């Protein structure tokens, strides 16, 4: 980007500066730390100059927004054309309570919906299963049947607003609930839009809400890709996630490398099935964390886009829509504290800003009570306002990739890309993504990083305000969410009534048909839809698949 002569001059000047200004000054006024390492333990230098990015070619490596390699953004106009979607992840108790919260959020300016399910639902168990004991509605909404889905979206214009659903093991079934509900409301399946997370690889790696072993899980996922691009064209059939990998303790580089690596694995499986890459790739989406190191996060998103574009091109994708990486971001839950919860608002603001400067398509901002309970109305409203202030008042949306060209940012973007490829080499040597998962490679890397980070905090080498420094013994003074005690009871009654009122012969017939198809190679979505339409419950449908596919047991790594 700069001529050779110029770089030589800059190099010399920098050396002179170090000799005459930097080191003498440092001697008299020592720096605050021995070295400054970011959250991937990369050392950050005393200054960045054109010398650090001299090897980059503007046209090839950086480019322009909306054009390959999409480093600077996936659309030519970015936020000048359309702001990111304000999409707050939300759900608790029974469908009625969550329905009210969704209406509240939409009223206050949210522009997309995002569903959080409770643990029994995430594992494909109905509320009255014995393993659901004590877990109903505690960390998300309980959905055991199409009836619950109807209540969840009652009075909400799902033909006009898109819905993201964080569901993995039983994703195909819960998606079927959503589709069936739309169909019952006479909404054309070709216009409903949204996302299912449906990313089983990261479940094995980090979040652990898997059900079936890898092969049948991948089969189900490719089934959704196929059904999606043919029947539900506005739907993102997967949200390839790094958020949870990061929350489990990985570094930013690991989050980047493992997530984009997972994405490529999904593409390979779909191609193996015979799908054409340009048919399904446009509907793949991603989901990243936004953690504390401001510039590292921005560099991470940029690197992700560039790597994805290059890799998909290598795999044969031709349509620009196949090459551009769209992603949702959530600010880092694990960075928020139970101590002095109000200051979490400040953390979230910085993290949200990083995501916007990194070009996210959609954003969830955590509430200040993240470490205490599910969000109260007040807390989630403030979180939403945070996004609105960034959007309306800060001016950062006026030009795409405002940090493009920064010596530090371009250097860091490049470094993170380089380290991603290093991780991919190691995974290749282990035999690929799934063998590496079964050997515990990812889990071990994550556990090591988590432990190292915790030790740094315990030794005060990294400061967490309010926790290991600036502590106060102040009682918590913010309202906390209270849930409806009678919700579980209501839900179980509803389930019992449903099981009585429906046509049980039809249900059993559909479940049998699903079982037969699961043993074969057909796409299972139509069979699942039939089960769902006849009001088979989540647990009943999932049990059929459990019986055919078996359950996954993870290797014990720590």
């Amino acid at each position, binding site marked *: 980007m700069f001529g050779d002569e110029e770089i030589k001059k800059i190099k010399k000047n920098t050396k002179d500066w170090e000799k005459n200004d930097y080191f003498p000054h440092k001697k008299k006024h020592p720096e605050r730390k021995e070295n400054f390492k970011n959250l991937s333990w990369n050392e950050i230098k005393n200054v960045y100059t054109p010398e650090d990015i001299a090897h980059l070619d503007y046209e090839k490596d950086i480019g322009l927004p909306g054009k390959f390699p999409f480093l600077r953004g996936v659309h030519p106009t970015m936020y000048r054309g359309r702001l990111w979607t304000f999409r707050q992840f939300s759900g608790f108790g029974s469908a009625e309570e969550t329905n009210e919260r969704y209406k509240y959020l939409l009223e206050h300016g949210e522009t997309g919906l995002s569903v959080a399910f409770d*643990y029994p639902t995430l594992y494909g168990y109905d509320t009255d299963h014995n393993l659901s*004991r004590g*877990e109903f509605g*505690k960390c998300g909404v309980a959905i055991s049947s199409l009836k619950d889905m109807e209540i969840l979206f009652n009075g909400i214009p799902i033909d006009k607003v898109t819905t993201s659903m964080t569901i993995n093991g039983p994703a195909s079934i819960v998606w079927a609930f959503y589709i069936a509900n739309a169909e019952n409301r006479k909404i054309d399946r070709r216009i409903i839009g949204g996302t299912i997370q449906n990313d089983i690889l990261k479940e094995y790696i980090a979040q*652990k809400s898997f059900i079936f072993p890898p092969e049948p899980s991948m089969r189900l996922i490719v089934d959704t890709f196929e059904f999606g691009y043919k029947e539900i064209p506005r739907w993102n059939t997967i949200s390839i996630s790094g958020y949870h990998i990061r929350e*489990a303790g990985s570094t930013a580089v690991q989050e980047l490398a493992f997530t984009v690596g997972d994405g490529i694995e999904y593409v390979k499986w779909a191609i193996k099935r015979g799908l054409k890459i340009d048919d399904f790739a446009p509907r793949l989406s991603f989901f990243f964390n936004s953690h504390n190191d401001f510039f590292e996060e921005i560099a991470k998103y940029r690197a992700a886009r560039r790597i994805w574009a290059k890799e998909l091109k290598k795999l044969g994708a031709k349509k620009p829509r196949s090459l551009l990486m769209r992603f949702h971001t959530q600010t880092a839950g694990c960075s928020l504290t139970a101590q002095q919860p109000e200051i979490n608002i400040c953390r979230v603001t910085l993290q949200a800003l990083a995501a916007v400067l990194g070009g996210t398509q959609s954003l969830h901002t955590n509430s200040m009570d993240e470490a205490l309970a599910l969000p109260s109305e007040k807390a989630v409203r403030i979180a939403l306002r945070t996004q609105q202030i960034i959007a309306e008042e800060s001016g950062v949306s006026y030009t795409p990739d405002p940090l493009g060209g920064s010596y530090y940012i371009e250097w860091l973007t490049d470094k993170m890309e380089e380290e991603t490829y290093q991780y991919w080499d190691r995974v290749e040597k282990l035999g690929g993504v799934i063998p590496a998962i079964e050997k515990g490679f990812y889990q071990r890397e994550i556990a090591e990083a988590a432990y190292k980070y915790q030790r740094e905090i315990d030794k005060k080498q990294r400061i967490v305000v309010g926790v290991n420094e600036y502590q106060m013994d102040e009682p918590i003074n913010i309202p906390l969410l209270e849930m409806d005690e009678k919700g579980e009871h209501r839900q179980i009654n509803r389930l019992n009534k449903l099981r009585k009122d429906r046509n049980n012969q039809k249900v059993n017939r559909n479940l049998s048909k699903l079982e037969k198809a699961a043993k074969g190679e057909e796409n299972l979505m139509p069979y699942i839809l039939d089960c769902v339409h006849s009001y088979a419950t989540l647990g009943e449908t999932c049990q059929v698949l459990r019986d055919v596919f078996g359950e996954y047991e993870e290797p014990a790594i*720590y």
Partner: protein
Amino acid sequence: MEHRIRVLVAKPGLDGHDRGAKIVARALRDAGMEVIYTGLHQTAEMIVESAIQEDVDVIGLSLLSGAHMTLFIDVADLLKKKKISDVIVIGGGIIPKKDVPKLKRAGISGVFGPGTPCEDIVDFIQKNVKR
């Protein structure tokens, strides 16, 4: 006499967030304790049976899904039912302060929320084990 403190670290219920449990297990090991980590999806029966066979001094429960009132108390109740009184039960995760008194009354002797330094847990165990 070479008594080592033996700890069972367990994740009851469906919660799959094991980052904290694994970190605590390692920290306890680094403090000289023998640690058995049970892994995910444990029922109260499985936890107590493991605790009996391993003759642990401490059962450490980790839960971030909000189901602690049911699941932690299940473990404490089962220990009482089996007349096991020389094992202390501690818990960690996302546990609102307002729930702590009820947990303590039920037999959970220490509750360690987010931000707890590992040293605090080590100290508590060393000061409170019954043998």
